[in-house]
């Protein structure tokens, strides 16, 4: 744990009660929004606190699966319905996009990339419905980044063999080997921090704007920070993951 959210927020609450300062109140509200509080504890290993982000992720998973089950039915090879055509064109577009980056011979990784992009996009946009976006929790972005890291390195090893993978650190000159090894961790770190920072920053900026000008002005900014930035970050995350995979598989 890097900080203890409970202590700080409790202190802030007490401060608000004492002073009633509006800035203090805002800070408290912001912190309340920013902190992912544990919703419940799993009573094993001395209690595992399950964060709100995990619960929201479960909700997203359930919704996505349910929608998939509802819409992906009665698929036909000939004369497909409108829903099927829309789904097919979306999936086909994503497939072409990822195959364009990692190559047709590595299409086995495409479903995961589509799945992650869908998850991040929904997570970033779910703030509009009142849920707390899971991507605002560092745990979630770290998990996404670790999965990407595993996938990147696995794809390299699977493609070129362990020996080649070990040897490629010493290219073009053995002198750069430490930097190349560091890259394994720097890539996911940058992925994770980019996503987390964008979501957090967008949220904070929006809150501040709402505080300063509560009327009309937040609307276009909300379009940018809540919708456009969320989709852009989802795109960037999977795009970079695919790019790194391609780099590793060369």
């Amino acid at each position, binding site marked *: *744990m*890097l*900080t*203890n*959210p409970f202590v700080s927020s409790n202190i802030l609450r007490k401060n608000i009660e004492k002073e009633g300062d509006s800035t203090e109140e805002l800070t408290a509200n912001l*912190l309340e929004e*920013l*902190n*992912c509080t544990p919703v419940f504890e799993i009573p094993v290993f001395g209690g*595992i*606190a*399950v*964060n709100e*982000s*995990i619960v929201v*992720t*479960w909700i*997203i*998973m359930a919704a*996505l*699966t349910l929608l*998939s*089950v509802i819409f*992906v039915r009665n*698929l*036909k*090879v*000939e004369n*497909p319905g409108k829903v*099927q055509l829309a*789904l*097919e064109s979306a*999936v*086909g577009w994503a*497939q072409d996009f990822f195959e364009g980056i990692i190559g047709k011979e590595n299409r086995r990784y495409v*479903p*995961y990339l*589509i*799945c*992650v992009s*869908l*998850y991040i996009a929904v997570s970033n946009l779910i703030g509009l419905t009142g849920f707390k976006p*899971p991507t605002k*929790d*560092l*745990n*979630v972005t*770290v*998990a*996404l980044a*670790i*999965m990407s890291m595993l996938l990147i390195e696995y794809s390299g090893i699977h493609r070129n063999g362990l020996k080649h993978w070990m040897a490629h650190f010493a290219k073009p000159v053995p002198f750069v080997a430490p930097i190349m090894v560091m890259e394994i961790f720097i890539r996911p770190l940058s992925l994770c921090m980019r996503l987390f920072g964008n979501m*957090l920053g967008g949220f904070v900026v929006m809150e501040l704007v709402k505080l300063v000008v509560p009327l009309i002005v937040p609307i276009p900014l909300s379009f940018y920070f809540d919708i456009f930035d969320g989709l852009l970050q989802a795109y960037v995350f999977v795009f970079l993951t695919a790019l790194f995979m391609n780099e590793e598989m060369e």
Partner: protein
Amino acid sequence: MLSLDFNFVLEMINLVILYLLLRKFLIGPLMNIMEKRRAMIADGLQNASDQQAQAMELKSRYEDALTGAKDESRRMIEQAKADAKKEYDRILEQAGTEADQMMRSARETIDVEREQALRQMKAEVASLAVDAARKVMADSCTARESQAVYDQFLKEAGDLHEDK
């Protein structure tokens, strides 16, 4: 805010489960159906090109057969013409020889008949001479008349003698 705890492991499990669920219910079926359609279209195109090739082959075969038939008919006509020409020549030649033969036999017949006529005439001349002589003997006629009769007789007989 920047807290990192056991939750990221839960999130990773979540991601894996989400991946499996979506692959099972969304991406898998859609990709499957798209692949099927792609295969069907490729199949159809392959079929079409196959059939076109087949049709072209049949066409060339028919054309070959047609040109063969044309050649055959021309050959047959020429053969028939040649046969007809030969037959015509043969018939003409036969007619010629027949005509020759007929002419020759006709000429022979004419010769024979003429000879017969001559012989008959000779016999008649002889009897005529006898008749004339008898007339001269029987009739008491003038010298002049008898002279004329002689002349006539001599003329007739002389002609005969000259011929011989």
